[in-house]
């Protein structure tokens, strides 16, 4: 009998197996560190020190995590409807345009708490708009969403470079970026959260968008498990034929799921654009859209899991910076290596350990 159909308790499915995948990914990364001639344990302790050693480190960790929560949710919402959205990167990029336009228009007239909700809507709308065409093509013309969303990432990159170089650039400046937003277009930092724990935020750009990210996670949880739309999405995700027999409109659900996915990806832009650099810059997304794939896989597409996985990747990014600072032999790109391995083991090879687990579990139950 195939071991794939043997039920396992949740703590194994959602706890032990992801943990095992993570450990294998880390062991191989440790091997790479050893290959370079550095100590894997030394690197690990630097990673932890960098991510948790100071208030500033924690602030950076949570800053990165904020972006990853948004993109992780974006990928997860699409996956629940059976769609693999590789386009979160491009949707976040275009979402940045929406949020920057709002900030540029309003920052001199109103305070940040008026700008923020409008910017959330702007970023979400632009992100959703960028997801709409691939969604429409999938729903109505049967083109593969994976391929169209990849194409749209590159189209977004070209479009945004064009806009920043030719349209939005500050006249007379060389850097392809918009002007710096005034106070009305900047999200306040969450220094007070740090001071509760008696430490200082320092220069870390940890900001209010973290709270929006948590709200978004809660919203996604309600949507997926507590609404009719969520039920329809999940049905479609499990079996599109079953959904069709149940009278669930395929095209409508695909488009709605992708619009939501794109909107969530777009909102990610709040964090770097309005929360950190206070301007729209070239390539500000910096791969966060792709990290979202890993985060969603690690977090088993559940909002709570995604929050934990996003913090884990935040630790990797901040700790990775620290390692590359302290061990110049190991460059920052080590993060990409670990990320690739996490995606491989948690995503593509997720069933590798399952037969062994099933075997062990059955022995354990018999005993």
């Amino acid at each position, binding site marked *: 009998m195939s071991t794939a159909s043997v039920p396992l308790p949740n703590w194994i499915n959602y706890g032990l197996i992801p943990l095992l995948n993570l450990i294998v990914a880390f062991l191989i990364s440790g091997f790479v560190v050893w290959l370079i001639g550095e100590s894997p344990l030394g690197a690990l302790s630097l990673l932890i020190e960098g991510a948790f050693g100071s208030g500033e480190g924690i602030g950076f960790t949570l800053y990165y995590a904020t972006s990853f929560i948004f993109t992780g949710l974006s990928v997860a919402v699409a996956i629940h409807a059976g769609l*693999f959205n590789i386009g979160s990167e491009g949707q976040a990029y275009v979402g940045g345009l929406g949020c920057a336009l709002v900030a540029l228009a309003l920052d001199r007239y109103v305070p940040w708490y008026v700008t923020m909700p409008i910017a959330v809507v702007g970023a979400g709308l632009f992100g959703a708009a960028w997801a709409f065409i691939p969604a429409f093509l999938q729903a109505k013309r049967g083109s593969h969403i994976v391929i169209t969303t*990849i*194409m749209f990432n590159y189209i977004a990159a070209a479009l945004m470079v064009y806009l920043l170089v030719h349209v939005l650039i500050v006249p007379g400046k060389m850097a392809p970026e918009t002007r710096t937003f005034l106070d009305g277009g900047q999200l306040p930092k969450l220094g007070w959260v740090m001071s509760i724990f008696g430490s200082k935020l320092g220069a870390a750009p940890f900001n209010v968008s973290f709270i929006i990210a948590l709200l978004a996670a809660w919203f996604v949880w309600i949507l997926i498990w507590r609404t009719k739309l969520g039920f329809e999405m999940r049905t479609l995700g499990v079996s599109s034929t079953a959904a069709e027999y149940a009278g669930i409109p395929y095209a409508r659900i695909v488009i709605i799921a992708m619009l939501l996915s794109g909107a969530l990806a777009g909102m990610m832009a709040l964090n770097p654009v309005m929360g950190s650099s206070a301007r729209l810059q070239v390539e500000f997304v910096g791969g966060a859209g792709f990290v979202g794939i890993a985060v969603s896989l690690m977090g088993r597409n559940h909002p709570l899991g995604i929050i934990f996985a996003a913090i884990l990747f935040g630790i990797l990014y901040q700790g990775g910076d620290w390692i590359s600072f302290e061990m110049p032999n190991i*460059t920052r790109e080590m993060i990409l290596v670990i990320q*690739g*391995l996490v995606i491989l083991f948690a995503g*593509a*090879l997720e069933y590798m350990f399952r037969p062994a687990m099933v075997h062990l579990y059955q022995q354990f139950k018999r005993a």
Partner: protein
Amino acid sequence: MDYYDIFISVLSSTIRLSIPLIFTALAGLFSERAGIFDIGLEGKMLGSAFAAACIAYLTGSAWLGLGAGIVCSVALSLVHGFASITNRGNQIVSGVAINFFIAGITIVLGQAWFGQGGRTPQLSAEARFAPIILPGADAARGIPILGPLYANVISGNNILTYLAFLAVPFSWWVLYRTRFGLRLRAVGENPGAVDTAGISVAWLRYRAVMCAGILCGFAGTYLAIAQSAAFIKDMSAGKGYIALAALVFAKWKPVPVMFACLLFGFLDALANFMQGKQVPLIGEVPVQVFQALPYILTCILLAGFIGVATPPKAGGVPYTKER
């Protein structure tokens, strides 16, 4: 410079820019025709470029570099195969993982071994594939129209360029005129039927991804030690995805793959050429338009506005025997 000279120079850079696309798109053709999606083309190309540059630098031999490029790329293909064939994992996820891993490891190892910010050291002339001057190229230069075409476009390329153009009819022959090719195409359409005929679906698919690995190895090697003289970080720069677009654009057929790659190569060459130049009536066309054009064209094709591109039926679906 008169118009014909411009035409010749754009044409020769079109050829140069198309070669990695042709190899990579053919790689994708073998894999996807067997039912294995391959988003990891980009990573395999980059990985083999790094391996080729390292070994060519260490041994001073371009051919050993090519061998290393192929070995690296095939190894990555086997990882992809292990995940998506043996473990029935998600093929897209596996490809994405390979791209991430390679984008990181090439820079990490490059920096650790050579300390030049992820570059490999500059290669000497012997460690590269040098241009081959075809017989009579110099003599032909004087002949109007055809002379420059022969001397500057057809002659003066390196051996990998000629191999790329040979690989196209060869791939066609393998896919459409051999038993292996027939089975490979069948396994991408209906693996159940192939299984019923007593042929191993897994072994066939493994061979298909290995073919893809070999071809990607050529592409990466071309980038690092034929076109350039070193590995530069992120030097594949999205070419794997363009190749994927070309494959879709060519509707998963070998000869159209070549033409799609030439078209995308031409757009790239045109973008380089048009930089800062005025077009009559329109003015300066932003370079980004040309950069985005292959992707936009592919989406339009996928939408079914220029014929329908039907992917292999079993593409992306892991094969389970019991069903």
